[in-house]
């Protein structure tokens, strides 16, 4: 089996598995006041400090959640509600059209049910948000804007957003910025305090930790209305008994991923460059989506994303799957029906290009042999998918 879908899920780091296993026999509720509770609380707080240290945040800025989707929902809705409560005119959200669905659909829900107004920030052909577009939107709507949400790096095409520049702009107009950095941790150098962003989404299972735990880094002073009400365990912004074992695994994985990031980024970047060069050699008309320079400041190191003209992405995926090669078309709805990529459409691609795409994403266990297997298979697979391309759609 050749696994090229690390942007969806990546194997847990052995150190994270070990740390979780060591914790499982303990059962204290970190909110309890007795010794068992205190023990659990201590583990949670040590983990919080570890996560904070790894990402340049203060421990008090780490709000543990159930994962990236919850963190995105909390940031977008929570910041919107808090800002609107402080000033009823602040109802506008500025977000890029290439956001993950957790942000995109939260924004759309706020527009439909909470009277939010949306400005979709324009992106260039690589999916990169144009700072001038944000400037123009802020010029026009600064007084009515609740928040800006722009991801750190795109989950489909790997484009790294100019977050520092966008944050500076937003702050110049007195608007907070949230960034979904789920894909970036462990792949890019991240510094929460240094970046200036007001809220940052991270999740464990993309960086070698367990599924079902993540965090919202929420700057001190940033007001956020809770989504989940109850015991107020996390800074009164998030309620729910904490998953101690998951948090331990998350912390160990985050620490390791960040420590190993420079070496990993360089290694994966090299593998990816090899993949891109050889794939285009085998399939000369394959179109590389996202940033073509492959520069580490502009593209995630493990990401390669192509459109194969005349093919359906889901046919390619099925044919590769049958050969033991696992990758993704990028986005899928709940019924598993492949839809044209909203990211490619926003970046100006036509529907055919957006339907014919595949994402190959490398991760910490990737080796050169993975690329070899793909390169060997991709030619015949594309040829066959192309023959099937129009069959069934006439």
């Amino acid at each position, binding site marked *: 089996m050749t696994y090229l879908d690390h942007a969806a899920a990546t194997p847990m780091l052995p150190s994270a598995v070990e740390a979780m296993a060591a914790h499982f026999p303990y059962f204290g509720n970190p909110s309890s006041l007795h010794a068992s509770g205190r023990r659990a609380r201590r583990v949670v707080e040590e983990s919080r400090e570890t996560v904070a240290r790894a990402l340049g945040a203060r421990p008090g800025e780490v709000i543990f959640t159930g994962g990236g989707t919850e963190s995105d929902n909390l940031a977008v809705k929570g910041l919107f509600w808090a800002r609107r409560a402080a000033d009823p005119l602040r109802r506008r959200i500025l977000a890029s059209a290439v956001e993950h669905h957790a942000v995109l659909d939260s924004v759309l829900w706020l527009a439909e049910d909470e009277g939010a107004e949306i400005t979709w920030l324009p992106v260039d052909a690589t999916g990169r948000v144009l700072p001038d577009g944000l400037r123009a939107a802020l010029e026009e709507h600064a007084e009515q804007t609740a928040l800006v949400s722009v991801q750190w790096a795109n989950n489909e095409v790997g484009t790294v957003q100019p977050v520092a520049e966008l944050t500076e702009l937003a702050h110049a107009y007195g608007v907070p910025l949230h960034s979904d950095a789920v894909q970036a941790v462990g792949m890019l150098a991240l510094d929460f305090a240094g970046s200036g962003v007001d809220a940052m989404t991270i999740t464990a299972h993309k960086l070698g930790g367990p599924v079902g735990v993540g965090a919202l880094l929420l700057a001190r002073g940033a007001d956020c209305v809770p989504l989940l009400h109850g015991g107020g365990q996390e800074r009164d912004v998030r309620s729910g008994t904490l998953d101690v074992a998951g948090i331990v695994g998350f912390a160990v994985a985050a620490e390791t991923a960040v420590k190993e990031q420079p070496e990993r980024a360089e290694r994966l970047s090299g593998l990816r460059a090899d993949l891109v060069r050889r794939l285009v050699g085998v399939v000369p008309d394959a179109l590389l989506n996202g940033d073509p320079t492959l520069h580490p400041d502009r593209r995630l190191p493990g990401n390669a994303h192509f459109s194969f003209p005349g093919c359906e992405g889901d046919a390619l*995926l099925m*044919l590769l799957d049958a050969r033991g090669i696992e990758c993704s078309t990028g986005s899928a709805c709940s019924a598993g029906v*492949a839809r044209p990529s909203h990211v490619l459409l926003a970046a100006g691609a036509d529907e055919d290009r957006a339907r014919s795409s595949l994402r190959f994403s490398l991760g910490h266990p990737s080796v050169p042999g993975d690329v070899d297997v793909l390169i060997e298979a991709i030619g015949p697979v594309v040829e066959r998918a192309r023959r099937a391309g129009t069959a069934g759609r006439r």
Partner: protein
Amino acid sequence: MRVLAAMSGGVDSAVAAARAAEAGHDVTGVHLALSAAPASYRSGARGCCTLEDARDARRAADVIGIPFYVWDLAERFRAEVVEDFVAEYAAGRTPNPCMRCNERIKFSAVLDRALALGFDAVATGHYARIVDGALYRAADEAKDQSYVLGGLTAEQVANAMFPLGGSQKVAVRAEASRRGLQVAAKPDSHDVCFIPDGDTAGFLARRLGAAPGEIVEDGGVLGEHVVGQHEGAYGYTVGQRRGLRLGRPAADGRPRFVLDVSPATRTITVGPRDALAVTALTGIAPRWCGPPPPPGAALAAQVRAHGEAVPCRAVLADGEVHVSLAAPLRAVAPGQAVVLYDRERVVGSATISVTSGPKERRA
């Protein structure tokens, strides 16, 4: 063989896929997403493309241990099946969307794509048998679905696989349960899948708008007289008795039936049951599953999915097939398919364009 199993999320297609896999084929399951906006859950026995059905199909594939994908054919289905359904009703005919789906979607769009992707056959849970490349009725007479497959050509049948054709439905359910398939007790789906509430007239009214007209009775020597009003001729089908809401009882006091639907004049003609008898019909656009029958061949004709087949003789002329029936069939509407059988074997089918009875019922 590499087999693509179309899995609706129902019990039949799940067992069909399981049998194909057990027979040693390399099977891949595919659920066809036919609705652009699928409902979350199935209500009763209607509808077949909800998210719940997709999950049931996926779960069955997991249990069988085969790869599973969802293919989006919603646009193709809309264009080929739903729009045709609406257009046929608008023209006063009574289409069979399941048959059309088999001809144009399952054994055309899906089959073409499957073959191009390297599969050798498409397997479904239909109850029909294939013997030496010919299509036959199923062993389970009550479940026999050869009629809705009657539009398939020999080429299409050559690449089809119906693993349930020799089985009884009760046995298939028991087998599903034995195999650990959760869908073993799921109700059968029937009716038109894209009209989940079963209200065909309402669906057509939304699509076609109101087109009120008169309901007239053919009074023989007394001539035609108006007996009621309707909101749209497309809501009526030849042979229909219920829902006519006629103000006056018939002269003879017996129930009246729809004899004719004429959207052009917005007229529904009603009359006695006897006038529904059809002894000859003409079919257009015939499709043959093998060689066309010799002139005057003694065959049997069936005009609805679970209706009786009556002995007939068929003659081909000018691309039409003229069928004379040995015994009358009732309530035969233009647009319905006539499927011709040679004993158990499907010979072919055609779309009924004209019918006539023992005595001309209309002037």
